[in-house]
Structures are given as structure tokens and as C-alpha cells.
């Protein structure tokens, strides 16, 4: 009786090492003892497995980035507040009133007012426009009580200069400036079916989302494309005015700030 490749492969992968698979193991071992072709196939499976051990060796060996070490050490106090946010979301889903979220969250007493405001904006966005921002995934993620930029958004905030950004980029950066507390902040627009604009400021290793709102699309409805420089939503404009110290960076200032890691 011939032995299937699946059997040989499972044997090579150690699947038959446990006592309950003794009969399968015996079957394969008897077969390969009398058939050098089968033995070579097993050898081939094992050799590929051995080679794969070195896959991404450089990733395993290089130092782990600080932000990940930090993320692994976050205290659960912050995690506990998120439960409130999730409760708020489910309340929201059933009640259908945007203000209730801010109220629920303010009632929880653990969130700073600006966050309650930002979150009510976000949840409003979430509920009114199902595909915009999914909490905990996508470009805007929840970290403890804060919203942070991830993936394409984090990368654009860190790397993209307005001087050379493509109109086709999924993230468009607008203004960059120093805040009154000395951090760099940048406005952004996520180009998607229903665009979202916001203000993010670098705190430690994370771009924290200060404010986010539906982008104003008046005047180009149906084109699915917002011309660069179109107005920021009022909530984002207000946050910029509130936070900005001095003037926005020009192209040169932006490039310098990027080189310095926005520090």
C-alpha cells in the first residue's frame, strides 16, 4: 500500500511523535525503510523545514522597537477605561443619539473633556457613516483612553512631506506646526469613500489623534476626490487655532522637523 504525501509530510513535521499516533508512525517508518524514494521525500520535507527556521532571522535578532516594549507594559488602568468606551459604543448603537456617548463617557468620570468631545465626534462619524473609522483597527486605533494613528496614517504623519505628496495618496497631510506644549502637530485627511480629517500630535512614540471629523466635501460631491487645500472641518480648524503656537511650518521647516524625528 502506498503512503500519501500528506502522511509523509505530517510525519516529517513531527505530527506522529505523540504515543497516540504510534501506529501511523510505524506505518510510515516501515514504508520509508523499504522505499528510498519515500525516504528522500521525507528528507526533502525536513530540509525545507530546517531552512525555514532562518526566515526573517533579522527580525528576530534586531532590537525590539521602544514603542512595542512600552505597549507590552501598559498598566491595565488605561485598559479598564476602554471598556467604558465599548459600553458607550453599544449604548450608542441601540439609542441612536450622538450626545449620549459623550454623556455616558463623561459620567464614567475617567475621561478628560476633550476626549469626550473627540470621541463623540468619532462615534457620530461611526454611526452616521458605517465605513469610516473602526475603533481598534484601521488607521485610527484606540490605545487606552486615547486615539492613535496606525498603519498608513502613522506612516504618513511621520514620513510624508506636503511638498512631495501625491494627490493619489490615501492620506493627505495639511498643516504642520508646533503646539503650545511644544509638540509637533499635523492635520490630515484620510481619503476614503467618506473622507475624514483630523489633527494629530506626536506624544512620545505615538501620533495621538486630538480631533477628527468628517471632511467637508461640499462642492465636489460625487467625485470621490477632494482637491488639496480644501477647507478643514470646523472642529479641526478650531483645534488647530487652539493648539498652534506661532505660524505653520513652511516646506523647509517641515523637512527639518521630519529629519529631526519630529522631536
Amino acid at each position: 500500500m502506498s503512503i500519501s504525501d500528506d502522511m509523509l509530510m505530517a510525519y516529517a513535521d513531527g505530527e506522529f511523535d505523540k504515543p497516540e499516533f504510534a501506529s501511523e508512525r510505524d506505518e510510515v517508518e516501515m514504508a520509508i525503510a523499504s522505499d528510498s524514494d519515500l525516504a528522500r521525500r521525507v528528507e526533502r520535507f525536513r530540509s525545507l523545514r530546517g531552512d525555514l527556521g532562518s526566515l526573517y532571522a533579522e527580525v528576530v535578532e534586531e532590537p525590539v522597537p521602544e514603542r512595542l516594549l512600552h505597549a507590552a507594559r501598559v498598566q491595565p488602568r488605561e485598559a479598564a477605561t476602554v471598556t467604558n468606551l465599548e459600553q458607550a459604543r453599544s449604548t450608542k448603537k441601540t439609542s441612536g443619539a450622538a450626545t449620549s456617548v459623550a454623556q455616558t463617557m463623561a459620567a464614567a468620570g475617567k475621561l478628560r473633556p476633550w476626549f469626550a468631545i473627540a470621541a463623540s465626534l468619532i462615534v457620530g462619524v461611526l454611526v452616521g457613516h458605517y465605513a469610516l473609522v473602526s475603533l481598534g483597527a484601521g488607521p485610527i486605533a484606540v490605545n487606552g483612553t486615547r486615539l492613535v494613528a496606525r498603519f498608513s496614517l502613522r506612516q504618513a504623519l511621520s514620513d510624508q512631506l506636503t511638498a512631495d505628496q501625491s494627490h493619489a495618496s490615501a492620506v493627505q497631510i495639511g498643516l504642520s506646526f508646533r503646539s503650545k506644549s511644544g509638540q509637533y502637530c499635523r492635520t490630515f485627511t484620510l481619503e476614503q469613500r467618506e473622507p475624514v480629517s483630523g489633527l494629530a500630535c506626536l506624544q512620545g512614540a505615538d501620533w495621538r489623534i486630538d480631533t477628527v471629523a468628517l471632511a467637508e466635501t461640499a462642492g465636489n460631491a460625487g467625485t470621490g476626490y477632494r482637491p488639496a487645500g480644501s477647507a478643514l472641518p470646523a472642529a479641526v480648524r478650531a483645534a488647530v487655532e487652539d493648539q498652534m503656537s506661532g505660524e505653520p511650518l513652511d516646506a523647509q521647516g517641515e523637512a527639518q522637523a521630519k529629519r529631526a524625528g519630529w522631536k
Partner: protein
Amino acid sequence: MSHSLSQVQDQLVALLPRLRRFARSLTRHPADADDLVQTALERALMRLEQWQAGSRLDSWMFGIIHNAWIDEVRARRRRDRVMTAQEAGEHVADAASEAPIQRLSLQAAFEQLDEEQREAVLLVLVEGLSYKEAAGVLKVPIGTISSRIARGRESLEALLGGREGGLR
């Protein structure tokens, strides 16, 4: 929970190199991989009570990374609906640009596999999980794992065709 929070966090820190490798195998992009690990760490710490002390922390984390990646891919698909064809083209070029045309390194060959095969191959052949453990992480039947590994191996051997080391 029989483990203190700081003990679990020590274990998480110790797992980071392997979590980063798994995330890299999924995203094929260094910065995306670390974002994925960060998202997974945050989710894990939020619902630490769901981890059964005594069960494998690594498998639990692999599962969270897997789910976070599914969410991210879905979110990207939604965003991509409005992206121009030009932008979509840039993304494709990104993924393929690392692949040499003639003779592929093992890593480049691996990155040509489809996502399901990469996950199964990484968990079983690189991380050393059993088929059953990998099935638990990915929430699929064991037979699905063994067929993904079989197809993954076949593709790798085909891509590495000219390589020395007893491949036919």
C-alpha cells in the same frame, strides 16, 4: 488569574521578537508589522481575562495578531474602493518589488505565497506549532492546516526550484 500582570507582561516582552516575525510574515512590510504587533498588544492587555492561564500565551497572541490583520485588511479594502487605479497599482508594486526575477531567496519565495499559506507555514514550519495548535490559532479545521502547508511547501519548492539541497 494565577499569574500576576507583570509576569504576563514579562512573557509578552519575551515573545516580542516572534510576534514581530509572525506579523512581518503577514504584512510583508516592517512598519505595518510593528503597527500590527502594537495593536495586538493593546487588545491583549484590554482582554487579558480572556487568556486562560496555563494555555500558551504565544498561541493566544498569534490569534490576536491574525484577527487584527483581518480587520486591517478589511479596513483597507473599504478605503481602496475610492482609491484611484494608479494608487492601487502602487500598492501592488510595493509587494512585488522585493522579489528578484530569477532566483528567489527563501524569504522572497515565502512572500510570494498567499496569505493563508504564509500563516500556516510560519506557525507550523517556522514556529513549530503542531497542526492542531495552528488550527486553534487560525480557527480552521486541522485538515485545512495540513492542506495549506502542503500547498505552501509545493509552491516554495517550485519557486526555489534551482536551489541546492536535494530539491528535485
